[in-house]
C-alpha cells in the first residue's frame, strides 16, 4: 500500500492542471440542456480533444493517452478543481466507448471512437421505455432483419441529451419469441434518420434535458450491431457495471462539492450550531470515503480484479451522498434556498438534479435488490 503519488502521476497531474488553467472558459457555460449551451459544450469537448484530454484513459490511437485508472482519477480531480464544464458526451466517452473497445469490431472502433472522443458525434443512451424502466428486460421496441439492414420500430424514453445528440445506442428486441433478457440486441443508430421523431421532455428545472425517441421503420445497417445478435443484454450489463462502478460519477465531483459546502458553511452557517457542523463534517467524510473507496476499487482493477455487483454499492453511495450534500447546503442557506437565483442558485439547481441520482442508472431500490441477491446471496424474491 502506498497512497503517495508516483513521480509519473504527479507529473501527469501538473500537466493536466497547467492545461486546464490555461484553457477552461473563465465564465460558466449555459446549461447543456439548452440549444446554445449544448453547442458551446460541444465546442469545449473539441478543445479538450485537441489538447488530448477528452478521453485520457483511451488508447492513443483513438484520441486518448493510455492513462491507467489511477491517472484517470487524477485527471478527474484536476478537471473538477478547475471548474471546467460538464461533459456533454459523457454517455459516449465513459459508457459506450469502453463497451465498443470491449466488444466492438475493428471497423466499429475505427469508425466510432475518434469521432466520439472529439464529440463530433455526441451520443444518447436509448434503453428505457415507457413500460421498461426498472424492468428493462421487458423492452418491446423491436428490430427486424431485412436484407443487410435492421428495421427499428418502437419508443424509447428518458434519453438524456437526445434532444441535440447525433446518435443513440439502443437495445431492441430482435427475437420476438424469446423472453425477457434473451433475444435483445444492442444497436447504434443516427438520430437524424427518416422515421425518427425526437420529442423533448422538460425536466424538473424546466430545461429539456431528456427526450422520447420514436422509431417508425427506421433502417440501419446490420453492421451497427454491437456485440452478438440476441446478446444485447450482456453487452448492456457490461456497460452498466462500468457506469455504476467507476466512470459515471468520479469522486472529484463530490470532493469539490464538499469544498464549496464548507465554504458556504463558513460564509453563512451558524458556527454555534453543532448539529450543522456535524452534518458538514459528515458530508466531508462521505466524499472522502467515496474517494478512498474508489482508489481501492481501481487499484483492484489494475491488479486484475473485476467489479461485479459491488458496483451497485457505489451507485447507492454516491447518489445518496449527493442528495445529502445539497440538503445541507439548502439548510445553511435558510430562506435564500427558496429562490432559484442569488447565492443559492447553484445549490438549488444542484439539489433538483441530485434528486434524480437515486433514479437514473438503475434506481437505488433495484441496486439494493442486486446487492442482496448477488453479493449477500439471498434467495431471489421475484
Amino acid at each position, binding site marked *: 500500500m502506498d497512497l503517495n503519488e508516483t513521480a509519473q502521476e504527479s507529473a501527469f497531474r501538473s500537466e493536466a492542471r497547467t492545461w486546464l488553467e490555461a484553457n477552461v472558459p473563465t465564465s460558466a457555460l449555459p446549461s447543456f440542456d439548452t440549444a446554445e449551451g449544448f453547442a458551446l459544450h460541444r465546442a469545449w469537448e473539441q478543445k479538450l480533444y485537441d489538447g488530448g484530454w477528452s478521453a485520457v484513459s483511451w488508447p492513443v490511437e483513438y484520441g486518448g493517452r493510455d492513462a491507467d485508472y489511477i491517472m484517470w482519477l487524477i485527471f478527474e480531480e484536476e478537471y473538477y478543481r478547475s471548474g471546467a464544464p460538464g461533459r456533454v458526451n459523457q454517455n459516449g466517452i465513459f459508457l459506450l466507448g469502453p463497451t465498443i473497445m470491449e466488444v466492438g469490431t475493428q471497423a466499429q472502433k475505427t469508425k466510432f471512437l475518434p469521432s466520439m472522443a472529439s464529440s463530433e458525434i455526441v451520443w444518447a443512451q436509448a434503453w428505457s421505455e415507457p413500460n421498461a424502466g426498472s424492468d428493462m428486460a421487458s423492452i418491446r421496441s423491436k428490430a427486424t432483419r431485412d436484407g443487410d439492414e435492421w428495421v427499428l420500430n418502437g419508443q424509447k424514453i428518458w434519453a438524456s441529451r437526445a434532444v441535440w445528440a447525433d446518435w443513440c445506442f439502443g437495445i431492441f428486441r430482435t427475437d420476438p419469441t424469446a423472453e425477457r433478457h434473451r433475444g435483445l440486441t444492442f444497436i447504434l443508430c443516427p438520430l437524424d434518420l427518416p422515421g425518427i421523431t425526437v420529442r423533448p421532455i422538460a425536466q424538473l428545472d424546466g430545461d429539456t434535458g431528456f427526450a422520447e425517441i420514436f422509431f417508425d421503420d427506421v433502417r440501419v445497417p446490420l453492421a451497427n450491431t454491437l456485440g452478438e445478435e440476441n446478446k444485447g443484454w450482456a453487452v448492456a450489463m457490461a456497460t452498466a457495471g462500468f457506469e455504476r462502478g467507476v466512470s459515471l460519477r468520479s469522486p472529484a465531483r463530490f470532493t469539490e462539492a464538499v469544498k464549496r459546502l464548507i465554504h458556504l458553511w463558513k460564509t453563512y452557517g451558524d458556527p454555534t450550531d453543532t448539529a450543522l457542523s456535524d452534518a458538514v463534517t459528515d458530508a466531508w467524510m462521505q466524499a472522502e470515503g*467515496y474517494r478512498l473507496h474508489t*482508489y481501492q476499487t481501481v487499484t483492484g482493477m489494475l491488479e486484475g480484479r473485476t467489479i461485479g455487483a459491488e458496483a451497485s454499492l457505489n451507485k447507492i453511495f454516491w447518489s445518496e451522498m449527493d442528495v445529502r450534500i445539497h440538503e445541507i447546503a439548502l439548510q445553511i442557506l435558510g430562506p435564500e434556498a427558496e429562490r432559484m437565483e442569488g447565492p443559492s442558485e447553484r445549490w438549488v439547481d444542484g439539489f433538483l438534479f441530485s434528486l434524480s441520482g437515486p433514479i437514473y442508472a438503475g434506481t437505488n431500490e433495484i441496486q439494493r435488490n442486486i446487492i442482496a441477491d448477488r*453479493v449477500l446471496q439471498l434467495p431471489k424474491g421475484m
Partner: protein
Amino acid sequence: MKFSFTQDQRLFAEGLRDLLSKQCTPTHVREAWENQTGHLPDLWSRLTEMGVLSMLVPESQGGMGGTLIDAVLLFQELGRAAVPGPVLEHMAVAAPALAHSQWAHALNDGTATATVWVDTGPYVAHAQVADLILRNDAVITGFSSTDVHGIDGGRQLFTISGGSESAASAQVFGLPASDVMALASAAYLIGVSEAMIEVAAEYARQREQFGKPIGSFQAVKHLMSDALLKVEFAKAPTYRAAWSASTGSSTALRDISMAKALASEAAYRASRSTMQVHGGIGYTWEADLQLWMKKSWALMRAYGDATYHRRRVGASVLHG
C-alpha cells in the same frame, strides 16, 4: 498510488482467520464470558505462537516488526471472530510501546498480559486478567480492580485503585495510545460487522415464513444491503488511517478519527439490521449473535465514539 494489501499481508490474515475458525468459535467466546474473566488463555498462546500479539514489536526486540498496515487486516480478523480478552490493547499498544522496557520479553512470549487505560473513558477493560496497565506515561502494576459490569462479557470493565507506577512511553509509531486504540478498534469493528452480516444472511437463507425463505422478502434484502453498504464504505477509510499512521502522515489523527466514526456507525447499523432479521431469536441469550452485537455496542463507545471522532475530524477540516 497503490491502494491494496500485499499477498503476504493477505495470506497472514487468512492464516489468522483459519486459526480463529477453529480456536475461537462462538463456543470458545462463550467460555470466556462464562469463566468470568473474558479471556481465553489457550487462544492467547496460539496468538502468541503465530506472532499476532508481537506483530508491531520491532524484530530487534523479538517481534514481527510489522507496521499498522500489516496489522490492520489482523485487527479485522480478530473482530470477525469476536476474540475476547485484551488482544487489541496488548497487541496494538502495550507490546510495541513497551518493546524497549523490562516488560518486553514477557509481553512477547505471552507470559505477561497488558491492557491500556486511555483518557477517552474512566474504565479499564480487561484489568482483571492484566499483569500491567499502560496509562499515559506510566505502567501500573499491583493494582486492585473492581468490576463495573461491562455489556460485553468478552471485554470486562473495571475501575482501578492502588498499585505502583513506573515511567514508560505510551506512544506507538509516534502516536498516542488512545489513537492507536481507536484505529485498532475501528478495524476490529469492521470485522465484527462483517460477521454479523454473514450470520444474518445465512439465517435469512434458512429461515422460512409464508412458505419462503425470509431472505426473499424485499424488506429484509434492503435492510441487509444498507448494512453492507455502511461497512464496505468504512473499510477504505480504515485502511487509509492505518497507512497514515504507519507513514507519519500529518493527517494521521484526523484519518484515524474518520475511521473510528465510520466503523462505529457501520457496526451499529449492522447490529440493528442483524438483530431485526433474526426476529425473536435475536433477542435471546442463547443466540450467538449477541457475542458480536455486544462487542459492537462496547467498542463503538470505547476509545472515542462516533460523535467524539466526528468532531475531531470537523476541527481539522472545517477550521483547518
